């Protein structure tokens, strides 16, 4: 309760800030030559001192990518992307990778401080356990990871993926590309060729991760694409909650972000993956903003495993992402909770896929789309029940809220059932904020914008309550800020 009312207060304080993460950090960077070719792929691989097998994998992906066409089925439109007119690698100049937090460039630490991301392990009061560990990715590289040592005590690996390639090659080699193969789709294949950094997590058998793990992505350099790759493996009977946040400076040109996230949950393991996506959305005229083409997929390999995606998508000029679950293990569970807010000229085409393979697999989809200004907001989802998924269950609820008469809200579900005993239910509604609700709130003293923020937060509550506390407040603030200027 207080979170939402705090939202109102914080929205007030932020009214004139609009996109407050739009600043640029002045720091010297090393970049790959502009454009994309095999040499650039080799350059990235060499910078990271990767083993031969990974370079081969990248090159296979790159060669495959050359044969692919950019997908055109999503309800988004944008001018053609010139893949040669961007940098594929940009890293702050340092000697070697930082060994400890004390060695991190103070300018970077200041950047993350400004973004509200704690990159210090300090101020641990006696007896108070840290609640969150952070891996900070700045452009193409991870610049700091906190609480690594503390996590290692439990056998948990939490580190940049480039470090995992060096230190845990067997795990990486076994699971990298096992959920999203290098040939999966245009953007994932591009990512496989040029991915730079991202987080790697391994939770050993029977371990419940004692704190939230979090990666914070920051695009800083101009004309640079970001291609991070995250791999999370939860071994038998383990539990982990992972958060992802992202911001970028305000720039007039569009920047490409094509990430891949792979999750693997083994027997009875649980992974909760939460995203608050706040890439720069472009200005009110639709200039600039991030093109966010992301492939996220989790495999519930083990029996009774569970993968839960929660996303709050408020940023990016274009959002194209479908965090999915492959429910292979019997009795496994997939969840997708989503809030997507589009304002001004933003376009979002987002949803999920739930592929039921094992027996008694269950999935839940709750999607809340809010569209304002001239934005287009599409839910696209697939529920597929394969012949062996006896007793499978899916329930899908998609609600759209329209604010203003120039925006669009669309719902495109695909339901494919191959098993008699499976039960699939899909419901979708579309509505607007009623004049009655607005007037009622204003009669009680709320301004029109506060009223919209309050009502929209209520509309999204089912999803927002799935977020870990650390993110809930930020997400609720974002809901208000994202809709600024949508009424009145």
């Amino acid at each position: 309760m207080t979170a939402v009312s705090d939202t109102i207060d914080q929205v007030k304080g932020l009214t004139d800030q609009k996109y407050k993460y739009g600043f640029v950090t002045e720091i010297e960077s090393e970049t790959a030559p502009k454009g994309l070719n095999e040499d650039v792929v080799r350059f990235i691989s060499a910078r990271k001192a990767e083993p031969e097998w990974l370079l081969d994998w990248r090159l296979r992906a790159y060669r495959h990518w050359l044969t692919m066409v950019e997908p055109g089925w999503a309800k988004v439109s944008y001018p053609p992307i010139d893949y040669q007119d961007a940098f594929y690698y940009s890293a702050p100049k340092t000697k070697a990778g930082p060994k400890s937090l004390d060695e991190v460039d103070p300018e970077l630490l200041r950047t993350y401080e400004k973004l509200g991301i704690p990159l210090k392990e300090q101020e641990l009061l006696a007896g108070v356990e840290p609640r969150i560990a952070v891996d900070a990715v700045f452009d193409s590289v991870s610049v700091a990871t906190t609480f690594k040592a503390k996590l290692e005590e439990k056998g948990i690996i939490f580190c940049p993926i480039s470090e995992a390639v060096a230190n845990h090659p067997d795990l990486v080699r076994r699971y990298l590309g096992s959920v999203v193969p290098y040939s999966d789709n245009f953007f994932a294949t591009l990512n496989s060729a040029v991915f730079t950094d991202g987080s790697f997590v391994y939770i050993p058998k029977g371990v419940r991760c004692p704190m939230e793990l979090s990666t914070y992505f920051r695009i800083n350099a101009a004309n640079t694409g970001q291609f991070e790759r995250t791999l999370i493996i939860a071994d038998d009977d383990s539990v982990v909650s992972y958060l992802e946040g992202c911001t970028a400076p305000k720039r007039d040109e569009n920047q490409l972000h094509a990430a891949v996230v792979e999750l693997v949950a083994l027997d009875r393991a649980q992974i909760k993956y939460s995203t608050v996506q706040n890439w720069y959305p472009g200005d009110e005229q639709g200039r600039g903003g991030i093109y966010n083409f992301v492939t996220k997929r989790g495999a519930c390999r083990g029996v009774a495993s569970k993968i839960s995606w929660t996303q709050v998508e408020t940023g990016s000029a274009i959002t194209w992402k479908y965090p999915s679950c492959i429910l292979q293990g019997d009795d496994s569970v997939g969840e997708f909770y989503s809030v997507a807010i589009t304002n001004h000229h933003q376009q979002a085409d987002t949803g999920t896929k739930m592929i039921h393979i094992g027996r008694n697999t269950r999935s839940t989809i709750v999607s809340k789309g809010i569209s304002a200004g001239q934005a287009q907001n599409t839910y696209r989802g697939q529920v597929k029940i394969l012949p062996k998924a006896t007793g499978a269950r899916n329930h899908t609820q998609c609600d759209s809220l329209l604010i203003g008469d120039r925006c669009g809200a669309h719902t495109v579900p695909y339901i494919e059932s191959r098993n008699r005993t499976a039960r699939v239910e899909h419901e979708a509604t579309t509505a607007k904020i009623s004049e009655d609700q607005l007037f009622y709130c204003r009669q009680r003293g709320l301004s029109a914008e506060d009223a919209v923020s309050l009502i929209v937060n209520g509309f999204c509550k089912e999803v927002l309550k799935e977020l870990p506390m650390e993110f809930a407040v930020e997400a609720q603030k974002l809901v208000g800020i994202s809709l600024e200027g949508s009424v009145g």
Partner: protein
Amino acid sequence: MLEITNLHASVGDRPILKGIDLSVQAGQVHAIMGPNGSGKSTLSYILAGREGYTITEGAVTLDGRDLLAQAPEERAASGVFLAFQYPVEIPGVSNATFLKAALNGVRRRRGEKELDAMEFLKLTRVKCRQLGMTDEMLKRAVNVGFSGGEKKRNEVLQMALLDPRLAVLDETDSGLDIDALRIVADGVNALRGPDRAMLVITHYQRLLSYIVPDRVHVLAHGRIQRSGGKELALELEARGYAEFGVDEAA
């Protein structure tokens, strides 16, 4: 305190109010009675600033300040409280959240210190106790799944918290059985005070047995046709609105 002078208002091209004059002093309770379609609810919405009505003539002031120029939330801060005939449902937003946002919105505009969560909770508990309500209602989404009686009690609770100068009660008795009516009326009566004026809008005399007014006005055809003491309500109950050219036999 509330001064309405020669108020004319219309919806589209259709005139609804055709010259209302009304003066309510602090500490007074005035009842506006009238048949369906007489403009009673229009008057309450205009006082609260709902869109969709055109003021063609006249003025409304509260404590000498022009009310009509203010946005609805500014009027709320100025002290206008409208108890809705049909309180609106807002799914997913808890009553507590809503009330705190409203209270702090009003306090901010009044230049008062905003309440933090603890202070708010304390204040709400006190108000609930005064009104004989449990604070269970605070946890539920605003008016969602509330019974008719609960909705009206929720309105009274909000009134108690926002501490208005002028409370306008629009058909507060509609949809209430006699027990619920008594509880709501007790709540309203508890909020009567020397600094507060109330405008009770109702079709039937019934409510006025519980909330006894100082003055009664009969509104019909967009005008106040007659004013009198509380006995006027009883007279209307007996004779109906026929003498005002309104046939309500049905």
